């Protein structure tokens, strides 16, 4: 495992004339909680999808866990866990059946399958609801189950694309506790969000706007350098400056 979990250099993704990702470069070191902040359509999801091997980049290079996402997608996929914006477990399967399915798909070894399943059930607080249909779960539980299914194979790097959208504040708080636990265990967590308070929880954040990174650094550092009280102010001032620059 190299020093940096994620390395991105000059990444570009075009859809026709539209530059969804426009020359983006950054690094994420191991064990870091790296936040991707920005309004809808800024290119956060597109970048994450490229890093997960779901989209191929138009230009530039991206390495995840030391593997090139364009040419070594198979190895990349074995080292990552991904949680998309949309809830993506099977509603018509029971909690346990969803876990068993992803366990099989990720190729979790037979000997540790039961322990991993119990770990995920405990983490999601679903030990007593393992036989329930997934569609019957409330938002927060669904979210935690989805996270659990994405980490069954103990991936060193996690990509969470707006994992807490549409979840109540308490469930969000619980979710972030889980993210901290995972980071403390040595995992790299790459998380996108548009909640400003969540930005404060990250070790470092990248502010994305119109396909570009307009600010990068630790939240405290960013606030200090611009002499602004909150992340929200940082966000607005950077975007206004970007608007002036391109106008």
């Amino acid at each position, binding site marked *: 495992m190299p020093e940096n979990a994620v390395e991105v250099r000059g990444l570009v993704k075009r859809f026709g004339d539209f530059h969804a990702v426009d020359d983006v470069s950054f690094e994420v070191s191991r064990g870091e909680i790296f936040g991707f902040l920005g309004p809808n359509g800024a290119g956060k999801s597109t970048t994450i999808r490229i890093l997960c091997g779901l989209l191929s980049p138009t230009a530039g290079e991206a390495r995840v866990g030391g593997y090139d996402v364009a040419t070594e997608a198979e190895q990349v996929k074995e080292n990552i866990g991904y949680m*998309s914006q949309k809830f*993506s477990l099977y*509603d018509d399967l029971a909690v346990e059946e969803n876990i068993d399915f992803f366990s099989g*798909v990720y*190729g979790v070894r037979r000997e540790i399958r039961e322990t991993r399943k119990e770990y995920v059930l405990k983490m999601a607080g679903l030990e007593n609801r393992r036989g329930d249909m997934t569609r019957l779960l409330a938002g927060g539980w669904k979210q935690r189950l989805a996270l659990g299914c994405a980490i069954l194979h103990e991936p060193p790097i996690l990509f969470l694309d707006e994992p807490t959208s549409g979840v109540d504040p308490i469930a969000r708080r619980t979710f972030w506790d889980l993210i901290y636990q995972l980071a403390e265990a040595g995992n790299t967590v790459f998380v996108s969000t548009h909640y400003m308070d969540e930005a404060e929880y990250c070790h470092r954040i990248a502010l994305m706007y119109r396909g570009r990174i307009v600010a990068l650094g630790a939240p405290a550092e960013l606030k200090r350098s611009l002499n602004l009280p909150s992340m929200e102010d940082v966000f607005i001032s950077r975007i206004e400056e970007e608007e002036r620059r391109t106008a």
Partner: protein
Amino acid sequence: MTFRRYRAVAKKEFLHILRDWRSLFAALAMPLVLLLLFGYALTLDVDRIATYVYDQDGTPESRELVERFRGSRYFDVLAMVGDYQTVERGIDTSRILLGVVIPNDFSSNVLSGKEADVQLLLDGSDSNTASLALGYAEGLMQMYALEVQNRAQNQKGMGHPGPAVDARIRVWYNSELQSKNYIVPGLIAVILMIIAALLTSLTIAREWENGTMEQLLSTPLRPAELLLGKLSAFFVLGLVDTVIAIFVGVVVFEVPLRGNPLFLLAASSIFLFGALCWGILISTVARSQLMAYQMGILSSFLPAFLLSGFVYAIENMPPVIRLLTYIIPARYFVTILKGIFLKGAGPEVLWGPLALLCVYAAVVFFLATKRLRQKVA
């Protein structure tokens, strides 16, 4: 290719099938309903043709001819009428298909061995039925004329010359010439094609719509593992449908099954696999379930129905269309089904179409995996 990943997908698909009991019920009822519907509606046998007779002659000879019409299972003499207008009106109002007009010189012509004309008025708006009716009527009258002439000659003491040629006809494979015997096996092919394509055409589109596809694509799961896992689950369902269809054909329609039932099942499996792959290919092309459903119906039902040769003989099609039939898998399966059902043929005779079905299945499976891989990138 890892067995563990394949098995996880197959198991999940089985659960989907079992949980969605409405679709499961529809999938199992479909062969029964379609076979009964098409089997009874699609009879090509013409019998009990509604007929009026206008007998101008009124002699023992003409009455005997009318009795022949009455005695035949092909005709149903609804009434004896006294004028042309009634016959014409009967055809215009579709009450009858055939009007038989016997002229007043009929018996004298018959007895003297001259040509005895009988006028047949037919409703030609359904040309197929009309020409069949015409054929039956002509045959009946020729038989009758021959007999009457023979009798007349016997009475004159000229002995029994008999007809010059006495053809003894023996029809092989479908000796009663019942259309159901060749329609039902062909129908099984058409129905399996529809069911198989419909079963699988939704499966990938559904994963896209629910957002689960994106999740699957982020895992190490390979396209071939995903497809084979899905195919296995639907294959079991399709095989149950096949058994139901064959059972209905043999028990309800009493189609003779002369060949080896195990060989029939094996050949059906090959066809089924190809048809399921076709549904999957559609599913990878269409992103919405609705579009997949429509494409599935159109691309499976129409070619299988029109171009497989199950009712409409391929030899009678224009050359371009005939060429087109070579890429329709149902064409080969219809040949195989008719061969096994009616002729009792085995693999030594049917290896050609069987091999082509294998090629079809392999090509479509390859295209579907390729297509899925393209979508991943």
